[in-house]
């Protein structure tokens, strides 16, 4: 079973990325069920946008995509 190399830091980085580009809003209790669902939903949105396999979980490919050089404008239409 391929062991994912995703670390706690990666989780933090991913959360920041989703907040910045996919309008992930802060959950009062980030560890709550609702917070996890929200993160998973935004991960799926990002994976769909970039043509990745839509898993809703933070895997190596998704993390690699998040680290590519890019424009700082949001991908979801919150830029307005």
């Amino acid at each position, binding site marked *: 079973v391929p062991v994912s190399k995703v670390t706690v830091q990666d989780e933090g980085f991913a959360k920041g990325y989703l907040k*910045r*580009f996919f309008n992930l809003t802060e959950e009062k209790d980030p560890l709550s069920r609702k917070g996890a669902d929200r993160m998973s939903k935004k991960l799926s949105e990002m994976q769909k*946008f*970039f*043509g990745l396999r839509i898993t809703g979980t933070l895997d190596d490919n998704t993390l690699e*995509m998040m*680290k*590519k*050089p*890019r*424009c*700082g*404008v*949001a*991908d979801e*239409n919150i*830029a*307005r």
Partner: protein
Amino acid sequence: YSTFGDGLKWSKNTVTYSRIVDYTPDLSQAEVDDSIRRALEVWAKVTPLTFTKLTSGTADIMISFARLSHGDNYPFDGPDGTLAHAFAPSPDIGGDAHFDDDETFTFRSSTGYVLFLVAAHEFGHSLGLSHSEDRSALMYPLYSYKDPDTFVLPQDDVRGIQSLYGSNPSGDTTTTTTGSSPSGDTTTTTTQAPTIPDVCSSPVEFDAVTTLKGEMFFFKDSYLWHSSSQSSTPQKSLISSFWPNAPTSVDAAYENPGTGNVLLFKGNQYWQFRGKTVLPDYPKRLSDFGFPSSVPKVDAAVHVSSISRTLLFVNNKYWSYNEGWRRMDRGYPKFIHRHLPGIGHRVDAAFENRGQLYFSSGSRQTEYHYQRRRALHTLMNYLWLGC
């Protein structure tokens, strides 16, 4: 493509942009200014928009280089990651473009981020486009290197920006610089699309020549002469007015009479057009055509109808391409001077007219009988241009 919606676009066609106050140390000021100007020209070319540079005062698009937290709610993040951002059209910060000065920006090298490419993307936002899901689009959020000298705005971006502003009615692109000079008077310099010199006043060298359904196109820099049955003298215009997705200038061109398509070559890429429309998946690399990867560019190309072969010239050699089998013939390349005696060692442009071949080199060309491998006449290029 996608737009910011809610009518977030400029309600005028003259958009102003600022001179840059704090330049990045990665490039000379001239390189930065040229990158910015060409990045705006990408959008001016396909819309009615014109861009005026203000050397003082507040412009619609204020351009700056900054690091980390820089006064808006979107701090940069050090090297790599976020390269730049821009704001949708609106007053104040709207339209402004900020570039992360912790990045290594380059003029054209792929060993950093080409400022022209990053700026052209950000100005798409400044004009009202948000990100595209099309990986080949300029407005795709991830950076990918492209040769700035052969850059052509992808169709997805053209459709996106024209959904906001319409197309360019004239084909000209103008960026002007207006503002007060030290003496206080206003200086206005306007750079129009290249004015086309009077061709008969001096010898002319062709970059490429092609036929197309009985008409002829003579390419030089970013423009061409087009001779058709409607006019006794060839008409001058920009390449982009015939083939909007073509590179600014071309190295070689030919018509495949079997398909009626035109192929244009520039650098190590080539485009195939049916009418004005570029075919899907183009541009392609020369290696896809069948050239070895060592070939940097094609100098000339001509389809020889009597043998159904296309001859393609690279430095002092040439290849023969079988259009039917869609592959290069065996035994090539061959030396030009040995197998096509009488046309010299190199060719700038080549075409066929009424069964004869014409090989142009410098301002002259040789009329050539292919079957007899004999040069018939030498003539000046500009004779084809009504001179």
